[in-house]
């Protein structure tokens, strides 16, 4: 199993009190499979994605990626996981404004020591970014920026792709187009895809779906 989450709990403590976000979530995903994670706002979808990506730590439970318990890892271990095994696509794109499109796409692959120029060229071509490679992110439209973000994630050939509302900032046509490319490339690479989304239509395009309600899977 590529991803296994067991009894994951998470509570946010603030000055005003504490909020329980996840209440014992179990989840699994195999390589080559895609899973949609749906739920209302505040149901804990993004929090669960962040925990699986090693961006935050759970209060209780276990999360295994390729057999390694990431909740037992320190910060450096989780950073290494994000460099080599997991790729994350954010709703806000999170491109590096000081780098060109080409450098942004190559960035994570170089960081992970997996840079493959031919593969990057393929991605640039498939995402229709050939004429944009010398531009900076601020010179691109939202759809183009999201395509760059997905290409960057896929360039390092991650085993697991985590996507947090990857088309939430895009119009319907662009969103559909971007999703086509994401799904086909993930399938080709044999990676697993876990995607947070509000969209029922989008969720229906994935292999399976789980729904979160008040921090628990229905």
């Amino acid at each position, binding site marked *: 199993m590529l991803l296994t989450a067991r009894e994951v709990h998470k509570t946010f403590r603030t000055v005003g009190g504490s909020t329980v976000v996840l209440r014992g979530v179990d989840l699994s995903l195999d390589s080559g499979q895609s899973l949609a994670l749906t739920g209302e706002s505040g149901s804990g979808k993004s929090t669960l994605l962040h925990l699986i990506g090693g961006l935050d730590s759970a209060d209780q439970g276990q999360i295994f990626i390729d057999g390694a318990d990431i909740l037992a890892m320190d910060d450096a271990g989780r950073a290494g996981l994000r460099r080599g095994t997991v790729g994350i696509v954010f709703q806000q794109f999170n491109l*590096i404004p000081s780098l060109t499109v080409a450098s942004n796409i190559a960035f*994570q692959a170089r960081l992970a020591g997996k840079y493959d120029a031919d593969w990057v060229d393929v991605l640039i071509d498939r995402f229709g970014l050939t004429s944009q490679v010398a531009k900076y992110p601020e010179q691109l439209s939202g759809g183009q920026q999201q395509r760059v973000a997905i290409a960057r994630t896929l360039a390092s050939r991650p085993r697991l792709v985590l996507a947090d509302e990857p088309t939430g900032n895009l119009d319907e046509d662009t969103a559909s187009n971007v999703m086509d490319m994401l799904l086909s490339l993930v399938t080709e690479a044999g990676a697993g895809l876990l995607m947070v989304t509000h969209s029922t239509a989008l969720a229906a395009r994935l292999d399976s779906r789980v729904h979160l309600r008040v921090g628990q899977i229905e």
Partner: protein
Amino acid sequence: MIAVTFAALWGHWWRSPLQLFTLLAGLALATALWSSVQAINAEARASYDAASATLGEVQFDRLVHRDGLPIGQDTYIRLRRGGWLVSPVIEGRIGDVRLIGLDPLTAPGGMAPIGWSNMNDLQDFILADGRIIAAPDVVLDGVESDPAVAPGTAIADVGTVQVLLGRRDEFDALVVRPEQPLGQASLEEIAPELTRQVAQSGSDIGRLTDSFHLNLSAFGLLSFAVGIFIVQGAIGLAFEQLRGTVQTLRTLGVPMQFLVLLIVVELLGLALIAGSIGVGLGYFIAALLMPDVSATLRGLYGADVVGTLELRPIWLASGMAISIGGTVVAASTALWKLSRMPLLVGAQPRAISVIAGRGEKAQAAASAVLLLVAFVLALTADEILTGFVLLGALLIGAALGLPIVLRVLLDGVAQYSRGVIASWFWADTRQQLPGLSLALMALLLAMATNVGVSTMVSSFRLTFVAFLDQRLSSELYVTAESPEQAAYMVDFMTPQVDAVLPIMSAQVQISGRPTDVFGARNHATYRDNWTFLTAGLTPWKDVHTNDAVLINEQLARSADLQVGDVVSIGEQPLAIAGVYADYGNPIGQAIIAEYLFKILFPNVLPLRFGLRLPLEDVGAFVEGLQSEAGLPASSVINQASIKAYSLAIFDRTFTVTAALNILTLSVAGFAILMSLLTLTAMRVPQLAPAWAMGLTRWQLGLLELFRTVMLAVLTGVIALPLGLALAWVLLAVVNVAAFGWRLPMFLFPWDYAQLGGLAILAAGLAALWPALQLARTPPADLLKVFSNEQ
């Protein structure tokens, strides 16, 4: 990983050239101002070392005449025969050149100019008949140049110098070798007229000028602090804009410690570049200022310092170190905040706002503590070091408190504002304050320093002019070359003038302090013109009838003497009848009656005289003096010339201060410009809603301009009392500790108004360009704000 991450970080500077320029320029300016002062200090200290080494004042004891008279060759021979290993020294001036005669055969090792390895060098050069070696700045025919010789100085064999000075068979001092034979006869037996000066007991020019250099260093540090405000502003803004990139890099798998390390390396690289530029710029500034510093030190302390500059490793290293240190200081807070930034910032907005609130509270607390320290020190400080600590606490405390005071003021104004635009403007100004506060703090420091230093200098000048009028009351001053000529001149002059007032002095110790004692004639010139800081009812009468003494403020303060106390000159006990101001004199001075002076110092004969005569007769009298008495023109000087000369020295003394003042103000203006320029790009999202609601772009631009000028005015209003407090500290604490005299403080409202106008103009000019940029922002850019929000 290093290369790609570094490329992403460096790309920020590459894409924000203005920020990079601000950082480099701020750091280079700060380093330049600091290292220029260090260069000047290093050069001056090297000159003092050279001078001390040449005369052996610091290393060796010296025998000098008790009455300050020359030592005869016969005395020297008697001492040598009595077993005393002494070496003669003669010193005089030819024009501006200090001429020193040494005896290479008897001089102790270490008396050679610094840089000469041993006495063989000295012997080699002097044994060549009549050879004279001089510092490179000495331009005289027939002398050889050597950089090891102290500036303004020429060295030759004692015999050669005796001939050149026309003083055959006499010396000024005998240097005592450290090793002396046992059983030598006592000095009292062989030469009772001589006294032994212990090494270091004389006027060490290095110590005398320490306060001047400390003053310069303080100014350099202040300028550096103003520059560091710019750097801190630039780094703070850059890090703020880097937060997104840093967060992305972390989500992509770059560890935070690695990122911090890379950022530190990047900043250190920038510090090295800016430091190199700054040191070069500092050298240029120092080279420009050095001639004035040199003139100041010569005029104020009699210290010869070269007017040119050498590259010295110590200040090169100090410049680079301060550049790196300044970067570390400026970046540490921003870097710490960045390193503590949560990976998922959006999850904890409240925590961040709480931290920001804590920051302001911490700043207010630090300000309050520093101002309290300043208050306590204002009541207790009596040394230079505590005086400067007081200055530092006062200035930094006030600077830290400025944003808080401004915010409170803005809150107050906002409460009373009417109309929607006014309400928006005040709220928006309050929001802008954190971004501008570092630049405004720099402006506050620069303006307060200007007010403080200009008040001190102008008060000093006003007092000094009145002091000159009081002290230089004789219309003419003449100097004879010998006692015989003096006697002839007195006979010649007495019938032609109202009064001939001899000026005679001897060096003594009063209460353990080296003091020049003068004998004053009983004449109305003194009674009518001299004013006292403290005195009995009839000080001059007491001096002339009751064997009393008048002392200067320096002696009174250093020896803790007051009117009524009794001091001794030789064996003679004298009551102090008055204490007078004696600005510009580094050592103690005392005045006794002429008759008493003649009793105590029978061998001192007056060679200088002050002459009282009607002003309209001065021209004819001087002509007669030259043609009939044969006195050369150089021996006669009128009162106006001395005053002009003294004021010229005074004004030159503060040229450096004025130059540093202007530089500091310029740096503050630059800080405002850079802050506004870097903020301009960030302003668009804040101004777009106001534009969308009906304000024109030009109105927005004008409001930006008004905002900056208004903040500069408020800062100026706060800077004025701070500057006056600074002036008080300089006059009442630092000056007293450094020079031994206290100056009265005067206020110069017109000067302050001019300075305020200048600062507002600088702020207005700095704000003009950014305001124009905002006024010309294309509507498309403003619209983009709303499209991004969707």
